[in-house]
């Protein structure tokens, strides 16, 4: 397997310092958004997708597993949270828990099935599993088929924070994003993360060293799926609906695209990639199907010319890991 990133060495204090500085900058920049007049809805949406992309990146960038079905976690958590909020009238915090737990359960099952094959088969299996779920949601009564679940009440988080206020909702989403981001960062730099990287580089050797690589991959898959689900649950409060779009394979493709544009296996790449792709969709919304064509062109250009992605190129230029 060819290395996708240069960061095979254990993390150095300098790299850690750089990354914490960039993280601090990102957190400050995101925190002042409500005071800048930027449309908060756009940033919130981008943050949710950034989190999904980061979760996806945990698998591909550090475990070498290309999941083409991450939309299933986004969509499943979305539907379950939406149902819990609207039909069961649960408070927001429990709604998020229900959605995330559903994604967790789904990841346990789908992970168990899909890690049984490697490489390209893994991608095809995840894609097929997400298509299976798509058809289930298309027919299941609680998802309301083509209409989706709409008009979801936002409620008060912990009975205090009124999520129908855009600024409050923004900071809640931001807190969720930053917390999950730190969790992923911590995972990557943990002994567990090091084993994952070794599996990416050479699975046979990792096995010969005595690691039960299947268990590591399964655990990484569960973590990734659960975090993607958490993002899906947050997104319900932003979009106030849950629909089939979020489970469709095109959504899985977009998640892949975001990560690829930002840089596979980079820490901040998926965040940058998500903002770029969501911004592009906003500005090009009037062009109809040409958006799909442009996305395809970006895919092709990234693979042929630009494999490191935006952050990967920047990191390469400064000879740092980001």
């Amino acid at each position, binding site marked *: 397997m060819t290395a996708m990133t240069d960061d095979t060495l254990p993390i150095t204090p300098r790299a850690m310092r750089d990354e914490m500085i960039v993280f601090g900058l990102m957190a400050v920049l995101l925190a002042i958004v409500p005071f800048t007049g930027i449309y908060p809805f756009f940033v919130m949406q981008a943050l949710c997708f950034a989190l999904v992309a980061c979760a996806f990146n945990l698998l591909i960038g550090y475990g070498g597993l290309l999941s083409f079905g991450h939309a299933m976690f986004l969509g499943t958590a979305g539907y379950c949270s939406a149902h819990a909020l609207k039909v069961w009238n649960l408070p927001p915090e429990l709604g998020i828990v229900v959605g995330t737990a559903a994604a967790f359960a789904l990841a346990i099952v789908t992970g168990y099935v899909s890690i049984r094959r490697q490489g*390209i088969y893994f991608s095809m299996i995840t894609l097929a599993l997400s298509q299976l779920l798509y058809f289930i949601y298309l027919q299941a009564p609680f998802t309301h088929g083509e209409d989706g679940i709409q008009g979801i009440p936002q409620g008060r988080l912990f009975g205090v924070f009124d999520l129908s206020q855009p600024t409050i909702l923004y900071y809640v989403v931001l807190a969720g994003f930053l917390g999950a981001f730190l969790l992923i960062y911590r995972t990557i730099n943990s002994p567990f993360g090091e084993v994952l990287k070794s599996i990416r580089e050479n699975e046979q050797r990792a096995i010969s060293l005595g690691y039960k690589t299947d268990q590591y991959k399964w655990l990484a898959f569960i973590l990734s799926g659960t975090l993607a689900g958490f993002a899906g649950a947050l997104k319900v409060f932003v979009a106030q609906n849950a629909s089939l779009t979020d489970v469709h394979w095109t959504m899985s493709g977009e998640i892949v695209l975001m990560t690829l544009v930002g840089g596979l296996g980079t820490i901040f790449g998926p965040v940058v990639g998500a903002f770029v792709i969501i911004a592009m969709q906003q500005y090009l919304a009037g062009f109809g199907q040409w958006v799909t064509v442009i996305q*395809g062109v970006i895919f092709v250009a990234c693979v042929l010319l630009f494999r490191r992605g935006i952050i990967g190129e920047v990191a390469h230029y400064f000879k740092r890991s980001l």
Partner: protein
Amino acid sequence: MQALYAQLLVGLINGSFYALLSLGLAVIFGMLNIINFAHGALYMMGAFVAYFLLNLFGINYWWALLISPLVVGIFGMILERTMLKWLTGLDHLYGLLLTFGLALIIQGVFQNYFGSSGLPYSIPDQLRGGMNLGFMFLPIYRGWVVVFSLVVCLATWFLIERTRLGAYLRAATENPTLVRAFGINVPRMITLTYGLGVGLAALAGVLSAPINQVRPLMGADLIIVVFAVVVIGGMGSIMGSIITGFALGVIEGLTKYFYPEASNTVVFVLMVLVLLVKPTGLTGRAA
């Protein structure tokens, strides 16, 4: 019983498409080490070329069966020469990503000009009508699709497993460097193989045009089912791809009769079961 036989026939037809498409995927994967995500889009192009031939040039179905795979095959070879060949030596996943991008481009362009609705393509005169077989009524065109696909599949099998060219191809799959040392132009063989695989997809597209109408997204969902077929059957064996393709089509058809709610999902469920029982797929080499 009539309905059961009818669904069985539909299953056999879908099975023909699964077989033709998974066969192409397997052949391409063997030589290029790429899973061709654009396969569904090229299948769609095959149907569209037949549509253009008929409506712009008045060229009939029979010529389309020959010309459309050639046109799409050449288009595929251009893609291989200009893009896919640069991926040699890189991780498999880049091939998947690149061809996914190509699929988005091709489908997006067609959607722009033709929307999402279907264009009609009529059954050629010679294949109209039907036969009463006693136990069921067989529309001739549908019977033709099944028989013709089976013949094409077996011919491809023969080409690869029983001819000298096929022997080169199998040898190049195993060890391209060594085969090159024997003076065989492997890069050209790779290009031709991609053309062949893509041509099979286009052929399936022409065959399906009179049955399923010609739509820009006709291949988008189909390719995902074919991926599941490939996971079930494995890509190690040509005959395995053919048999798995037809068998899954029939199972899907039976499901439509006995439990229609599950007809969309049965192939995926079977994939899960196969992975649980025999992770390497039915025809078995590990990936």
